[in-house]
């Protein structure tokens, strides 16, 4: 049965997931804009995988609601499932099959399948078709997992640390594939990673997961342009932030403060007592996920 088409790929409202007394997600609200590449950042154990699994309907929320293309995540109809691609964290899946068997198996379920793209990536990424997946290296398994997820030209692509086992060349190739995917298909991409340089290369948006909530979701360029690292005596920094109506994000004891203005124009120049430098993504990561 087909349901009315909804172009909002993913929405979470008041999402809470608890394991016993531990609240991994704690009333999380999040909406993914269509056609954006969103980098999901969070410390180890922050709940990125749990969030991804809950958004995809692979894990029941303790409370709250998640939807995919306007349908409840736990009961997504076939037409919406055909629009989703997922690369899980572990890529050593279906190890008993050969690469060809795996692709044929998944192909049998999807209404559309981009054979040219699959063949191109298989040969470009040098994956043996007749070898069992168990016999492939971790990097090749991960590449195969990515090909499988891209093969049906999904409109929402969710990748859980997809580049962990890839060498720099393969990572660059994979990232350019992601960019092509967005340009050609207007695909919405969510990917979690710890490699910030990769994220800076392709992500349009960045979302920080901390304390079971999305602490901040903003366009990456805008965020980097409007964020600063302030150095100096704490009292001077605090006065500077107050005077220029900046938003303090965090401060390490005795260290620099990370602050944010409304936009790039709102960032004031340095003074004799306070230094002003552009904040890096790493500064923001450390500040927002503390």
């Amino acid at each position, binding site marked *: 049965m087909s349901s009315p088409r909804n172009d909002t790929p993913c929405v979470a409202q008041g999402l809470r997931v608890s394991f016993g007394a531990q609240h991994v997600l704690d009333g999380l609200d999040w909406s993914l804009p269509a056609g954006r590449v969103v980098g999901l950042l969070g410390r180890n154990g922050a709940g990125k995988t749990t969030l991804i699994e809950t958004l995809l309907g*692979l894990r029941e929320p303790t409370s709250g609601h998640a939807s995919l293309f306007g349908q409840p995540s736990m009961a997504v109809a076939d037409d919406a499932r055909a629009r989703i691609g997922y690369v899980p964290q572990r890529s050593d899946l279906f190890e008993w099959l050969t690469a060809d*068997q795996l692709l044929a198996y998944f192909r049998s379920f999807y209404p559309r399948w981009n054979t040219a793209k699959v063949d191109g990536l298989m040969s470009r990424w040098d994956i043996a078709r007749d070898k069992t997946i168990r016999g492939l290296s971790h990097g090749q398994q991960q590449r195969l997992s990515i090909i499988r997820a891209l093969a049906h030209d999904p409109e929402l692509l969710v990748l859980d640390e997809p580049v962990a086992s890839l060498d720099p060349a393969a990572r660059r190739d994979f990232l350019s594939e992601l960019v092509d995917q967005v340009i050609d298909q207007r695909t919405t991409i969510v990917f979690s990673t710890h490699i910030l340089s990769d994220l800076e290369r392709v992500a349009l948006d960045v979302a920080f997961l901390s304390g079971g909530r999305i602490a901040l979701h903003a366009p990456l360029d805008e965020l980097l342009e409007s964020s600063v690292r302030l150095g100096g005596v704490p009292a001077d920094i605090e006065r500077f932030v107050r005077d220029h109506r900046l938003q303090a994000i965090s401060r390490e004891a005795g260290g620099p403060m990370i602050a944010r203005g409304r936009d790039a124009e709102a960032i004031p120049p340095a003074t004799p007592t306070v230094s002003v430098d552009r904040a890096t993504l790493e500064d923001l990561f450390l500040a927002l996920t503390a």
Partner: protein
Amino acid sequence: MNHAESSAIARILASPFQQRINQDSVWGAIVVIVLCLAAPAGLLVWSLVAEASLAPELRYRAAVSGAIAAVALLIAAWMMLVGNLLQQNQPAMARLVPGHVARLRTALLVAWALGVLAIAAGPGFVFGDPLAWACAAAAGLALLAASLRWPVLWVLGFMFVFVVVPTLTWEGPTSTTEILQAQWRHAARLVTAIVATAGAAALAALVSEGGRGLQASHDAGRSLGCRFAGSARTGCAQGPRAASRPYSAWLTRQLARGDASVSSRLLLGLGPSVHWTMRIRHGLIFVGVCGGMCAVVVGLAAFLGRDLHGVLPWLSFSLLTGASTPALQAAAQLYKTRREQALLVLLPGMPRGARLNRWLAWQMSVLFVASALAGFVLAGALDLFAETLDKGLVQRSGGADMTAAIAVALLPQVVFQWRAWARQRVASALEFVPTLAPFLLGGAALMLHLWAGVAYLPMGLVFMALALAYCAWRWWRMGGEPTAMPIGRLAR
């Protein structure tokens, strides 16, 4: 051994139990212990209220069943401990951690010595001849430990239990057993010394020092070791290793058709170990092994000129249990592919919710019932063969009652296929309940038949009716339960 050394060994020995406590609730272990001790406790209570003339016999039976239960629990603890120690014997740690291999070896030998002492001091003193019990325990525990690293020993052990022992003991004490007993009386200490030395050497050899081939041997032993160490939830849990040829052929055929049903493709996606092609392959191998054993028994009987055919009905008993055992381990097999299931449920066309829950229960039930029925047919054929060799043999051998009792107990085990799979906990002592259940229920049926004269057929019908009622109730309940896959994701 200094204090630091002995506390390190104590920590190594405690780690399997810590692992159990961390992964499992204590209740799982308590349920298994209670199930094992139910029969002796019941007999003991009965002896207190029964007529005075019956009491000694009941107390003796309670002692026997208690000893069997205690030895079974000790063996289970031993297997868990060895499985865990073999897991700790990782190639990198063997090479890099100072004294690790030596401590693992010492821990294994200390645990072995304690197990042997427990058996000698328990059943040994209750039934007499503690040295013989110690010798048998030393050999048995060492062999069980070795079989975790070298699985071929399971096959040899199976042949020993079901062919060699019945062949030696059929028709009562034979000259062979008498010779063995005489040898034991003559050189008990020498035999014990040889067994102790060989056992200790075998156990020391189980713990590898590292080097070439260790990784392969570690990987091979790990899956079995993990099973007994109960760490299906850790990195130990591996997916099926390779597709069998019939599975691959069926997969290729189904995918080439283009119109294969979702049900057929979903079953393929759950991996070879729960697919019917693999079950048929497993069944054929099992039939081949049993056929080979039959040939050995019949050939040996002809060669020795002795009547050994009484072994055959016991083989039919093992056929019946062996054919259905893999189907009773569905939870562990499904758990291996739980990460693949996360991808499967996202595929268009895949059922979810009540439809998937009922589909899975139905598929697992069909596989189980087909395996059990195949076991019935094969056991019946073997009994028929034994009867053609010697009329009335099946009844005389005592195997008929065992086979009938297991047959009555087997089909009701279909209830284990109707679980709440999303909440299924695999790394639990309760994981072994489905495998033990036919024997526990079969034992109860045997006692009811022998002591109370209840016929097998009505008993079987009652058990089956109860099982079907349970399945019907589960069918209804599954309508409101979370989607079955990925298996175990809601387990606490």
